């Protein structure tokens, strides 16, 4: 028998079991891999509406006078000049300029910022923020208080808007959020997502999670698991922490220069990024398509045309929407231009591939 470890469960655990989801372990949580099947769920999000339980994500709050300015010392993007009610995608970096985590930072008001962090990094980010935030700022792990549900797909905005009687959510712009009642539950509704489709991510009290989930699924959103979440985000060219970005790679290498505001003043990792920018980035995260048959997978070697190992696949799948094998990989900058021929070592077979621009799929 394998050693059993205490798994965390989300407030929606019972709903997943009664829907007969295939449960898997992910970041110390027991979560649905799929309900009906990855392909069906993937298609539901691309064509209609899907709903994901993402309550495993962590929420870390910075509170106190000047919370946005304090957060700016800890992230590469800029919160100080954002209006309240806006959010940004950003790296939280090491002194070496590599990813402690990638997060969405919500500027609630002048005295409160909420970081939505990857479940796998919750404790690590909490310790990092506590160690580096000014003493006047209170840092709190609110992860257990929040449930989070993502409603995604071409029909998602209308679906959630119909459940929100007090507010018109259709006019909420990308990366903006507002607090309102959805199906009777108080929720922070953000126009964000991780699928490449339009939609919302809803933060609500853990106590309200099941009633909100039921209201959303009753009007036709299809429950979707981690499997579809992974194929959707990969088609959309969105990085996954632990696969495509980690403490070995910087946002400049990962093609996320747009999240790095070197001119905003000091932040952890800035000096290293300035040096990296001056010296040039040696390797880059690129998208690729397999020309040969097969499916690229995380960890497979990237070969150049002479057969030499020059990089590594970080994510790969058979794209359900495009019906072709796609992936992301780190390659030397000299091989990072779209169109460049590369090979993927698929269990000893050098399979022909080429670098392509990301995203693979755009709505």
């Amino acid at each position, binding site marked *: 028998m394998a050693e059993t470890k205490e798994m965390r469960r989300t407030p929606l655990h019972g709903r997943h079991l009664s829907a007969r989801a295939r449960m898997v372990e992910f970041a110390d949580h027991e979560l649905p891999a799929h309900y009906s*099947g*990855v*392909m069906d769920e993937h298609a539901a999000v691309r064509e209609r509406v899907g709903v994901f339980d993402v309550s495993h994500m962590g929420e870390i709050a910075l509170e106190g006078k000047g919370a946005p300015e304090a957060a700016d010392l800890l992230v590469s993007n800029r919160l100080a000049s954002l209006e309240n009610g806006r959010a940004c995608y950003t790296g939280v970096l090491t002194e070496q300029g590599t990813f402690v985590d990638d997060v969405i930072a919500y500027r609630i008001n002048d005295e409160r910022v909420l970081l939505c962090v990857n479940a796998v990094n919750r404790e690590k980010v909490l310790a990092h923020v506590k160690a580096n935030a000014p003493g006047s700022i209170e840092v709190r792990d609110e992860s257990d208080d929040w449930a989070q549900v993502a409603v995604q797909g071409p029909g998602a905005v209308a679906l959630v808007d119909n459940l929100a009687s007090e507010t018109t959510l259709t006019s909420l712009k990308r990366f903006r959020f507002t607090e309102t009642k959805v199906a009777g539950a108080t929720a922070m509704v953000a126009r964000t997502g991780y699928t490449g489709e339009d939609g919302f991510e809803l933060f609500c009290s853990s106590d309200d999670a099941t009633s909100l989930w039921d209201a959303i699924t009753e009007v036709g959103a299809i429950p979707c698991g981690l499997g579809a979440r992974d194929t959707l985000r990969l088609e959309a060219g969105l990085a996954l922490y632990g696969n495509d970005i980690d403490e070995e790679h910087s946002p400049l290498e990962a093609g996320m220069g747009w999240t790095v505001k070197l001119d905003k003043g000091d932040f952890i990792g800035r000096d290293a990024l300035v040096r990296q920018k001056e010296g040039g980035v040696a390797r880059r995260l690129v998208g690729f398509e397999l020309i040969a*048959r*097969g*499916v690229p*997978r995380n960890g497979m070697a990237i070969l150049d045309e002479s057969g030499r190992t020059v990089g590594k696949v970080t994510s790969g*799948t*058979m794209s*359900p929407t495009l019906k072709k094998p796609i992936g992301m990989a780190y390659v030397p900058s000299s091989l990072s231009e779209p169109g460049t021929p590369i090979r993927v070592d698929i269990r000893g077979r050098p399979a022909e591939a080429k670098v392509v621009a990301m995203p693979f799929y755009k709505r």
Partner: protein
Amino acid sequence: MANIPEDLRYSEEHEWLRPAGDQVTIGITDHAQNQMGDIVFIELPEVGDEITRGEAFGTVESTKAVSELFAPISGRIVEINDTLVDAPEAINEDPYGDGWMVRIEPTDLSDLDEMMTSEAYQELVESED
């Protein structure tokens, strides 16, 4: 509940075998496809290839995982299901019909007698649940 037809034989690697004359058709079971999830890719041997009992003769990949296909008995490939190359989802939809994988001429037809009956396979599946 997994579908386990009574008229087939089964391997411990969750393949089914259907004898007809001196040939045997092979695929993976309903239980196996259900465990794997949506199948997106398959690699099969070529007609004329010899396959050896216990050795890999192909791969099946689902959205998440790669599984090798192990030959339940030895023999020579006489036909492969080409349609699976473009439509591997047939393995999920109809594992005992359109999802068949290869047809072989067994080196020794009596090897089939060592394969599990549907009752024995049912017990194996239940013991794994």
